[in-house]
């Protein structure tokens, strides 16, 4: 039997870059195939070639034994290939069925009227055949992310897709939704569909795929059966060397209280309450991790703490003083470093070079400023030292920020903020878009800050990151802490439940130390029990198995 898709010697060059270099890839019909690699390894480019968004510089796309040339996605769709992008292409105010049939509406009245009954029926029929539980009349705006993803899959199936390409399908899902997605994969492949998904997470490639192809620097490093490899093998293939899988944490020695947040309420830009009564405290030499699906108030919480957003009520006490009404500059002057979520909007001025970007936030302070003028020499030295220490490539401080790749921009921002000699670091998604090697470095650096006695508020959607680095782990759901747990003992499933807004009652949970967000678990005596569990070897191993993705 012919493979569903055969990519034969695909090379894709962009001016100055080879994104894919002579990639051969065969994908068996009815299989789930993971395309694994670091950011910039060429995974998405390769799939865009298959989907007709890009034309290959060299090589041939063979679908079901027939060589094809796709001028546009239209051609690819006609050949039975569907792609589900990382950002969903759905129209929010329209219903599920309207979105599914968009562009291919069944018509009546001589093509004049959309045949609504037929369209709904087609959607219901597809939805039932693949066991999706989707209401055809629900508005997309009201549907959960998991449902939206299924609508995207339905869109592809409705257009007759036999091969489904999914770009980072789990990035926006809770662990439970990920499990449901794997069930969907199974249902689809049982009925002869082929799935290719792009990922940079080892764990999900291992658990969901039959075969895994690893790309590195645009080259196919190898295709392996997922049953035959370990996480370490894959990591080695991705990075090209041994990777330390677990950041080495030491028992913490919490010092003085740095930050105390009490009953904080924060509204988002639309005036909807995003943070609804969060309380916590943070001490010197402590990392408090905040896990949660993006959009559950983490961003607004970070903005409130760093003085970028006025809370609607509640108090933030930093180093013993209330920060109410304090300006952003006062926050910086008092030693608060901030790695913002959106590096383009808030982390960098894209048209500035790295020298200028390197002093953002410190532009009033010596050694960069004296007598109202900026000392560009000192600024350049500073930028160079950050570039060197954080391995920003290419190491050119005179280049504008926009000329760097996302991962390198991120490294530069983190470097700038970490080197500020802060008392408190608020880091949101500090390693987003950064490759494994640099992620490792940033993690080590963060733990060094902790060892130096800095307080760190770490917000990340990467579970392994928050779990591996934090002393305490708070899970946020719809603006509230659904639980504060010991990262050393909690399981990924338990975090998943918390992320979905469920609560864990002490009875039913194995080994996890559950603290109430405002209860005594966070008070003076809290260090004892968390310290106690952190060191124990057996518990550490379970998290290593379940928690680490990259």
């Amino acid at each position, binding site marked *: 039997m012919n493979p569903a898709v055969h990519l034969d010697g695909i090379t894709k060059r962009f001016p100055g870059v080879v994104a894919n270099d002579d990639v051969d890839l065969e994908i068996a019909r009815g299989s789930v195939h993971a395309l694994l690699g670091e950011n910039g390894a060429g995974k998405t480019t390769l799939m865009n070639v298959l989907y007709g968004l890009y034309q290959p510089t060299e090589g041939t796309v063979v679908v079901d034994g027939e060589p094809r040339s796709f001028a546009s996605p239209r051609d690819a*769709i006609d050949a039975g290939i569907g792609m589900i992008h990382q950002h969903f*292409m759905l129209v*929010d105010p*329209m219903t599920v069925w309207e979105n599914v049939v*968009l*562009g291919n509406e069944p*018509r009546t009245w001589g093509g004049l009227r*959309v045949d*609504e009954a037929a369209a709904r029926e087609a959607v219901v029929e597809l939805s039932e055949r693949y066991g999706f539980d989707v209401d055809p009349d629900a508005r997309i705006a009201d549907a959960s992310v998991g449902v939206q993803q299924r609508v995207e899959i339905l869109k592809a199936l409705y257009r007759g897709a036999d091969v489904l390409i999914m770009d980072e399908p789990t990035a926006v899902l809770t662990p439970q939704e990920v499990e449901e997605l794997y069930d969907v994969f199974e249902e689809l492949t049982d009925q002869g569909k082929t799935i290719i998904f792009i990922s940079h997470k080892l764990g999900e490639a291992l658990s969901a795929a039959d075969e895994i192809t690893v790309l590195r620097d645009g080259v196919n490093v190898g295709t392996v059966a997922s049953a035959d490899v370990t996480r370490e093998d894959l990591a080695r293939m991705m990075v090209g060397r041994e990777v330390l899988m677990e950041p080495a944490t030491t028992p913490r020695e919490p010092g003085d209280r740095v930050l105390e947040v009490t009953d904080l309420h924060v509204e988002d830009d639309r005036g909807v309450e995003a943070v609804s009564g969060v309380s916590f405290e943070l001490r010197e030499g402590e990392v408090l991790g905040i896990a949660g699906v993006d959009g559950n108030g983490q961003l607004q919480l970070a903005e409130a703490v760093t003085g970028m957003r006025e809370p609607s009520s509640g108090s933030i006490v930093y180093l013993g003083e209330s920060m109410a009404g304090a300006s952003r500059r006062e926050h910086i002057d008092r030693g608060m470093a901030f790695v913002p979520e959106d590096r383009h909007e808030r982390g960098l001025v894209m048209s500035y070079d790295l020298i200028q970007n390197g002093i953002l936030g410190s532009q009033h302070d010596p050694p960069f400023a004296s007598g109202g003028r900026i000392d560009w020499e000192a600024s350049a030295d500073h930028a160079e030292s950050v570039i060197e220490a954080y391995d920003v490539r290419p190491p050119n401080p005179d280049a504008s920020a926009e000329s760097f790749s996302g991962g390198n921009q991120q490294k530069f921002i983190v470097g700038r903020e970490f080197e500020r000699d802060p008392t408190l670091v608020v880091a949101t998604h500090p390693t987003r878009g950064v490759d494994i090697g640099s992620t490792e470095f940033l993690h080590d650096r963060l733990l060094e800050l902790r060892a130096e006695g800095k307080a760190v508020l770490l917000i990340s959607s990467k579970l392994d990151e928050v779990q591996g680095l934090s002393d305490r782990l708070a899970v946020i759901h719809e603006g509230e802490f659904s639980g504060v747990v010991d990262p050393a003992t909690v399981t990924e499933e338990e975090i998943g439940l918390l992320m979905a807004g469920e609560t864990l009652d002490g009875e039913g949970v194995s080994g996890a130390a559950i603290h109430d967000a405002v209860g005594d678990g966070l008070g003076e005596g809290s260090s004892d029990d968390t310290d106690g569990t952190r060191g124990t070897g057996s518990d550490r191993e379970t998290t290593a198995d379940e928690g680490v993705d990259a």
Partner: protein
Amino acid sequence: MRNPLADVTVPVLDDLIDDDYVRSLVVGVGGILGLLGVLGLLFPGSVAGDLAGIVFSTSTAASTSRLAAPIVLAGLGGIFAEKSGVINIGLEGLLIISAFMSVYIASVVGIGNAVLGIPAIWIGFLSGIAASTVLAGVFGVVCIEFKADQIIAGLAVWLIALGLAPFMSTVFFGGVNTPNLGASVGWRYSAVMVAVATLASWWALNHTAFGKHLEASGENPKALDTVGVSVSRVRYAGVLLSGVLSGVGGSALALSIGQFVGSGETMVQGKGFIAIVAYLFGNYNPLGTLGAGVLFAGLDATQIRLQQLGYAVPDTLVQTIPYVVVIVVLALVGRTRLPAAAGDHYETEE
């Protein structure tokens, strides 16, 4: 703010309009008119009686229809453009250019003559539509092809028409006002055109593939592009339709009296801007736009009649009502929501 009218149920209306806000608008206006009618019947000699007499008179119906046609038709056009993602604030200019061209071409053909069996006045009417559509097409090219700022381009459309129409009138007729054609299009034609255009627009937006594409184009153009529908084509269609419908409105306005008045802000007198108010008030629903347009025009017509009866109603105050209403509606009720991608340019990748 909870809207008490949203809970009122009216059998046929509830099936027709699934938007609470628009339904309550229609129910509210209907209720006020009904109350006025009852009061008028009960107290014939009072102010309410006079008012009811005016509101329900044929002459008020005629002038309401005449005043409402450009507002509602341009408003419907504005819906098509804005739903597609192109905010057309040049509706005023489209009304002006079509008002002038309809009269000019009708006079060139000559009342009493016909082309291809079509009487001159209707040739004028069609020419007005054509002129407005061409100007809208230029606006579309500037905004969609050359990615100009839609607001600035829209203002340019207005200013060009505002200058060009009286200028051409001066060139061809020796004054900013054209002479009267001595023929006109009766108000019943306008009323029928408004009714047909409203229902057709409503149906097209809700039940055709084009309507769905239009919505997708204004909300998430990328979603439309990835399913293989050209966003540019949908947007051109939306903008051209705004030209066609505004052209009908402008021609109907000028030909209802058989003359183009080009002094001051011209005879269009801000109706294109009130049209924008009307469709925002109507929350992009053609039926709501009709309701808003008739309400505004009705107030204006009533005010004119009241003046004639000797009541001292300040006309400038009545004319500000639409603008006050839209601010109240936008600020307090907050139900009107612009399409998410309105005003944004869209470019296909690669």
